[in-house]
């Protein structure tokens, strides 16, 4: 039963095993005469096949590049290597197995490569930021500001490098304010579009879509003209601009998540005489909780990294200004942008450190969200059993449908 709840490969395998096998597995090892078959298993020989195909393709390209022709450049190498590998892999499998198996593996490798290609920029970016940013990352850099920094390089005396503390404080304050302003508005908009409806649903959806396509700098210019010109540069003005960035992202994400909530639940709630707001608040939103948190975080992550709208709203400074409502503030993204333009290596490195801190901040927000999404203590002190803990794996909590599938699975077996 419990394996069934892990709706992953494990349970699939458990299903495939013969029932008597499953029964003996717990108590004693099966008799040696029984040979287990796992049709989907990728055996060591298959791995060897894959690696050897890759290696032989690599060797051929290497010979082609270094011995036969004068071609060079890693990009060209990879561009020739990959199709050659695919062809090689197909050929080898065609020799050993049937045509279907060969095609299956060929397509499988192409799809896997797509996934790797997708991961590649992220991995390279992470490595790059860490490599450059770690040089200046220290406790001092995290706790000091750029106050009194003389841009004279590392060799000069006095506060030559400075730190990112003022930017860190600024970013946290601006994003927090933006979230406080933008998230309720965004969630309410999504609830309106999806749950309440009415004549304006379509036009509002179009506006939200248009907003998500608006260049970020336009948000900055907008806030500059309606707020900054009247009052002053401030962190709050930056927060307003970020809220504009955040709004369409969160609205669209939330709307998608609300769509997945099954209509049966809304009807059940209505049949229990719940008012409309109750249905939304107690049934729809809790059911969509994990997806909701994900879309909110996505919005925060998008806004936390914005630079363009901040240039015209918070302006940037060198000293600590913890008050977001008056005078210019700094933000990590803006600091990175300004530092990297300076002609001093240590200052450029500090810019990368700023980027690294931002990077870690975003990462921390995501981890926090996963934790929040996974274990939410409900009111009434009711405890969640192991069973439901298994059920709320990130995979199942990501979308309510997969949870529903595992429910039906369980129902089918249990009753």
């Amino acid at each position, binding site marked *: 039963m419990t394996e069934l709840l892990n709706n992953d490969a494990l349970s699939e395998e458990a299903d495939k095993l013969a029932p008597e096998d499953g029964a003996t597995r717990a108590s004693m090892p099966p008799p040696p005469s029984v040979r287990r078959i796992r049709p989907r298993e990728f055996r060591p020989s298959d791995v060897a096949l894959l690696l050897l195909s890759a290696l032989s393709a690599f060797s051929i390209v290497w010979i082609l590049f270094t011995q036969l022709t004068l071609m060079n450049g890693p990009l060209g190498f990879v561009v020739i290597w990959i199709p050659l590998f695919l062809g090689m892999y197909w050929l080898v499998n065609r020799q050993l197995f049937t045509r279907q198996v060969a095609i299956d593996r060929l397509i499988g490798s192409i799809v896997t490569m797509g996934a790797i290609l997708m991961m590649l920029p992220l991995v390279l970016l992470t490595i790059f930021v860490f490599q450059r940013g770690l040089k200046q990352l220290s406790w001092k850099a995290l706790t000091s500001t750029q106050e009194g920094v003389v841009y004279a390089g590392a060799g000069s005396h006095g506060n030559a490098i400075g730190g990112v503390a003022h930017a860190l404080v600024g970013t946290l304050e601006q994003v927090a304010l933006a979230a406080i302003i933008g998230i309720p508005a965004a969630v309410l908009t999504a609830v309106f579009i999806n749950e309440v409806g009415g004549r304006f649903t379509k036009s509002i959806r179009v506006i939200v879509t248009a907003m998500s396509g608006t260049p970020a700098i336009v948000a900055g210019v907008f806030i500059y003209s309606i707020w900054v010109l009247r009052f002053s540069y401030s962190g709050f003005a930056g927060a307003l601009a970020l809220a504009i960035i955040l709004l369409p992202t969160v609205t669209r994400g939330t709307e998608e998540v609300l769509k997945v909530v*099954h209509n*049966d*639940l809304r*009807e*059940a*709630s*209505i*049949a*229990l*005489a*719940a*008012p409309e707001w*109750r249905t939304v608040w*107690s*049934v729809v939103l*809790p*059911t969509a*909780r994990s997806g909701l948190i994900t879309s909110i975080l996505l919005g925060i992550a998008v806004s936390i990294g914005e630079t363009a709208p901040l240039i015209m709203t918070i302006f940037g400074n060198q000293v600590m200004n913890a008050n977001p409502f008056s005078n210019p503030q700094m933000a990590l993204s803006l600091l990175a942008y300004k530092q990297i333009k300076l002609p001093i290596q240590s200052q450029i490195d500090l810019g990368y450190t700023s980027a690294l801190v931002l990077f870690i901040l975003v990462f921390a927000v995501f981890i926090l969200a996963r934790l929040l999404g996974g274990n939410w203590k*409900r009111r*009434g002190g*009711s*405890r*969640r*059993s192991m*069973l*439901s803990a298994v*059920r709320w794996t990130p995979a199942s909590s990501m979308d*309510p449908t997969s*949870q*529903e599938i595992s*429910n*039906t699975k*369980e*129902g*089918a077996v*249990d*009753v």
Partner: protein
Amino acid sequence: MSDVLNAQESESGTLVASSASSAVTSLRIDGVTAAELEAKGVYAWFGERCVLEDVNLVMERTKVTALIGPSGCGKSTFLRILNRMHEIVPSAALAGQVELDGDDIYDANQRAATIRRHIGMVFQRPNPFPAMSVRDNVLAGLRFNKIRSNHKDEIVEEALSKAGLFSEVKDRLGDLGGALSGGQQQRLCIARALAVKPAVLLMDEPCSALDPGSTLRIEQTIQEIAEEVTVVIVTHNMQQANRVSHSTAFFLAQDGNPGYIVETGPTKDIFTNPQDPRTADYVSGRFG
């Protein structure tokens, strides 16, 4: 409406959920809170299409009334008219009266929410709230209607017992509603509907998504709760109608015409001695 219902409560000396400040008393002490439901000349439309025509039916107090008939004959639509769920479909319209102990539930002064609290509903697919625990699922109706009670544990136990589920889940009240099996989920939905102590319980093919074992349990449950609440059940399963119901109404819709009631009467008569040849054909399995 609420006046009359309250009057009815005081007459029978029992408490329904509306008087929740003191909703401690078990329903079982005094027996009946059930009400009689009567449909008079009910028509229903989706857009311009008429789906029900002149339906007249009395659903007697503390009895089980089964609605049978082939697919698309308007049984479910009729059922949803009985607790004002029909109107949540944007294009839906209706005509006629539905009287709950003599009060028209479609009177302009009635709030749909009040009606739905007195006339509960169980759906075809089990739909416990997945983000709530078993306990919170049962108490959802109370919470939604802002009914406060110091005796929630008793209410949970009573509702779950009536739905025949308490012994199975008494150690798992904190588990999520979705963690139960399909049959248990459906009984949880019945418990959820019973917790607000409705006068009528509508069931829309409650067993169609379940296996025979669970179906049997739910049928037992229906017979037990019918002592306290009027039950109206839509079913495709004629054996089920035969087993659980006291009276039966046979619906039919032919060639795209609106559905109507061909014959009503005590279940025994409908199944053993139908007056109309179409009823005879349907219950003997010759069509439908």
